[in-house]
């Protein structure tokens, strides 16, 4: 267990003039949930495809479970959920599980049954007739059916309703409790926030941040809207000088808060506030934090982390 579950060293992939992944250094430890965040097109799927040897690095290298993603013995221990599971639409979920099970040397029938029941899947229905959400569930079930020690999940809950997202998160937590390592790629923060211990943020193929979720959350800017009993004035806004970025629109004050909201609340107490709306720090804001070097918290510039 000395080698990390996933390690990339200077991993680079160029498609012609485009550098999709640029000198990526990562180490995912055994047993952790590693969030891999980035906007669409940042190179997340490209990284995963290199881990699984679907495409070869232009430079650098990647090892998975101490070996190569091309090695069947390594693949046997990986559960992969692609962003868009595409299989022959005439296959039933049962066909898919039988086929993959045969390739993997057999699924535990009880566990497979449990998973199908848990996600309320009918194994006799052709995959092509399933809704997007149900196809997604088939993808989840096939990814964990052989109880792999490493899960590589690409946008796992896109297309799932909140109930199913919750069910999926419960499943992942159980598996992690049993020692499973998870490489979780996503472009939505809440999904990663709910599961991951550490997060890497990728932008244009480059690692722009590597930190724990807690650190990330602290650095995220929170948006708060205050509704006043009268149109906001410059005097109202001045209350927040040096505490938050404030702007007014009619009777509302929009605040952009970095770090703790405590000073903001104390300052707001001087106004007559009728309603407060807070917006969960969204990924856009987190990305913005990392896009602008001036805003970048020093304790999180761990790019190119040394190990």
């Amino acid at each position, binding site marked *: 267990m000395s080698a990390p579950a996933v390690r990339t060293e200077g991993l680079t992939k160029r498609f012609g003039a485009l550098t999709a992944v640029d000198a990526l250094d990562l180490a995912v430890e055994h047993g952790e949930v590693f969030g891999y965040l980035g906007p669409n097109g940042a190179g997340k799927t490209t990284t995963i495809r290199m881990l*699984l040897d679907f495409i070869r690095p232009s430079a650098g290298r990647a090892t998975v479970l101490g070996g190569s993603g091309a090695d069947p013995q390594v693949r046997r221990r990986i559960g992969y959920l692609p962003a868009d599971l595409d*299989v022959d639409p005439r296959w039933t979920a049962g066909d898919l599980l039988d086929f*993959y099970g045969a390739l993997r040397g057999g699924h535990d029938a009880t566990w497979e049954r449990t998973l199908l029941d848990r996600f309320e899947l009918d194994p006799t229905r052709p995959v092509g007739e399933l809704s997007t959400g149900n196809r997604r569930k088939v993808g989840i079930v096939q990814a964990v059916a052989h109880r792999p020690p490493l899960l590589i999940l690409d946008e796992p809950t896109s297309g799932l309703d909140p109930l199913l997202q919750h069910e999926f998160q419960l499943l992942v937590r159980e598996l992690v409790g049993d020692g499973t390592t998870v490489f979780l790629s996503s472009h939505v923060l809440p999904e990663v926030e709910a599961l991951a211990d550490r997060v890497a943020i990728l932008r244009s193929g480059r690692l722009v941040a590597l930190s724990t979720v807690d650190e990330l959350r602290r650095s995220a800017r929170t948006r708060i809207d205050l509704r006043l009993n009268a149109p906001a004035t410059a005097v109202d806004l001045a209350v927040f000088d040096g505490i938050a970025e404030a702007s007014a629109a009619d009777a509302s004050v929009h605040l952009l808060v970095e770090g703790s909201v405590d000073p903001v609340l104390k300052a707001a107490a001087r106004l007559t506030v009728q309603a407060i709306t807070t917006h969960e720090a969204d990924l856009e804001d987190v990305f913005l934090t990392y896009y602008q070097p001036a805003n970048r918290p020093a304790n999180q510039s761990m790019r190119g982390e040394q190990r």
Partner: protein
Amino acid sequence: MIVAARMVRDRRRSTGWWTLGVLALVAFTVALYPSVKDQGEIEDLMRNLPDAFRAMIGYDAAVPLTSPAGYLHARLFSTVGPLLFVVFGIGIGAQAIGGIEESGRLEPMLANPVTRGRVAVERYLAGVALLAGLVVVFAVATFALAAAVDALAGVRTGGLLGACAAVGALAVLHLSLAYAVGAGTGRRGPAVGVAAAVAIGGYLVYSLLSLVEVLAPLRFLTPWYWYLQRNMLAHGVAVAAIVVPLVLSALLFAVGCSLFLRRDLR
């Protein structure tokens, strides 16, 4: 052979339809023989046709069209028959890697404990096996029906088997070409396109070059010449018509496979 078995199962239904088509072709063709065999004027008609046209339909002056060997060769083994197998072969060869990769269905499979090489080999063999199965159906049906309507007189058994094997080899060659292009590019379109162009071009070159005396030696460049130059039903097996396409097929498979192993998936 799990990957191969899965591919055979996936193509069960379409192969069933192809089997029906082959049976229908054999049945209609062979059943018509009794009404043709007493019509001497067909022979006169043939003698008056241009050489190129006679070559195109596989006419051989030494073997009358009204004889079983002449009739079966011209009607079953020279036109629609090989075309059917070549089309089937191209479809399956293009799908084996190019088609499945283009549709995005290859990567989920490859995330399992299988090497790319194993998938490449098994899916090729599955395609060849399906084609071979179709040829066997064709051979058995031809033997049985020809025997039933008394259309085996003067037909060499070995020659008929050889002709069936040769039509299979011709189709395997085109299957392998489509496979190699598909495996090299990861796309179905170019695989079908290149293989179909070679099939049609080969056939045209064979028939048109027969017209021009000085160019006739060039005919050996086309697989259709290896296959059609000799009426095996009347004259016995032409080993080259079976072996040469199979050797080339093995080469094409090796090339396609090695390209597939080296490149990025699409």
